[in-house]
């Protein structure tokens, strides 16, 4: 897990630096950062044995609606 976190920090920092240097639009930076952090949170849930199951959320919602 520690290697994943280190790799993520390097990639995240690198991509942010590159985007800022390329004068990328602000909203693009915000969107990419959000997506990367969501991905990171999801991977952490896998490493911590509390997998986030998107299919389970969908199933719960469908059951809740009563379809």
């Amino acid at each position: 897990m520690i290697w994943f976190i280190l790799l993520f920090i390097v990639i995240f920092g690198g991509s942010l630096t590159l985007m800022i240097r390329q004068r990328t639009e602000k909203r693009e930076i915000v969107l990419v950062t959000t997506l990367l952090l969501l991905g990171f949170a999801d991977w952490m849930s896998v490493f911590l044995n509390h997998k986030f199951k998107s299919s389970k959320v969908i199933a719960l919602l469908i059951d809740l609606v009563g379809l």
Partner: protein
Amino acid sequence: MESSKITVWQFFVLTLSFLAGTSFFFIPGGLIAVAKQDAWIIPFWAGAAGIAAALIWIRLARQYPGMSIIHICMKVAGKPIGGLLAFLYITYFIQLSVFITRNVGDFMKQTMMPITPLTVFHSMFLVITAYAVIKGIETIARSSELLFIIMALTFVLIFCMALAQWDWNHFQGSFRMNVWESLVETRNIFGFPFLESLVFLMLFPFVQAKVKRSFIWAIIMATALLSLTTFFTIGVLGVTRASHDTYPLFVIAQEVHVGTFFEHLESTIALILLAAIFIKLSIAYYCSVLGLCQLFRISSRFWVTIALILLISGLALGYDNVVENIEFSQRYDFEYTLLYSIFIPCLLLLVSWIRKGWGKRREEPAS
């Protein structure tokens, strides 16, 4: 928005590969388990429903020419509600990409490389697909044009070779299906593959002409191919064997023997499936990225595509095993897809008609 254009033939190939590409691998086993010898009939009514849904999407797209579903949502329902609907569509495209990615992993791990971790298949496949997505829809369309011919020829070759094991006795006891029960139990076939072709609502603006004709023909072809594959699987493997295998077509390829020269063609069929999954994943992934770029008005796809690799590969690990994957597909896939493919498009059509009606009434007293 991207100014790329794809030809009618490219659009036809994309649609056909998307619909038939993976389903002829994953669908027959489940259908045969429920409807036994009559399983080949089921794709026909699912295809008919697919055509009906396609007519709704085409009607919606024609009301707003040159617009994708994301733009249509924003235009019809306004920024706050339309934005929310567009965001829901993007989550659907991402979930579809996750599902397809997981299919690659499950297939490779079960059949070819049982020791390799799932993440390796997912990340390798996603990196290749991301490259295609960055290059754009024209690249995806051209590569699918090339791969389609290879896929079709290989499939026909294996089909012909496996005919040696054909047995008409496998069809004994046909036409005893309980139609309503089979319809309910195999309802997932409406969702996968037919209704999930709603992703093409994102690609309609790129097609030069004759969208309706090529789209409908692709659905008809996919229906015929799916029915033929199921028929072929029953004829070669029989009901009992076919319904107990996760990938019956793979088993057929494994058992092909033509002398001692042509044996164990399973790697060949695995290659076809990988090519089909590549096309399907490229389309779903491209639609996710394009949707995000359109919703947030971003001109470059590069960074969004790269960032999505991490999210999709992580979410693809959210299933414990292939059984959970199949169970979700059988129990919830139809209901889940129905919301995006029928309910929201009908709602958008209704709102746009009401708006047009109001607009005409306002114009009349003024004139």
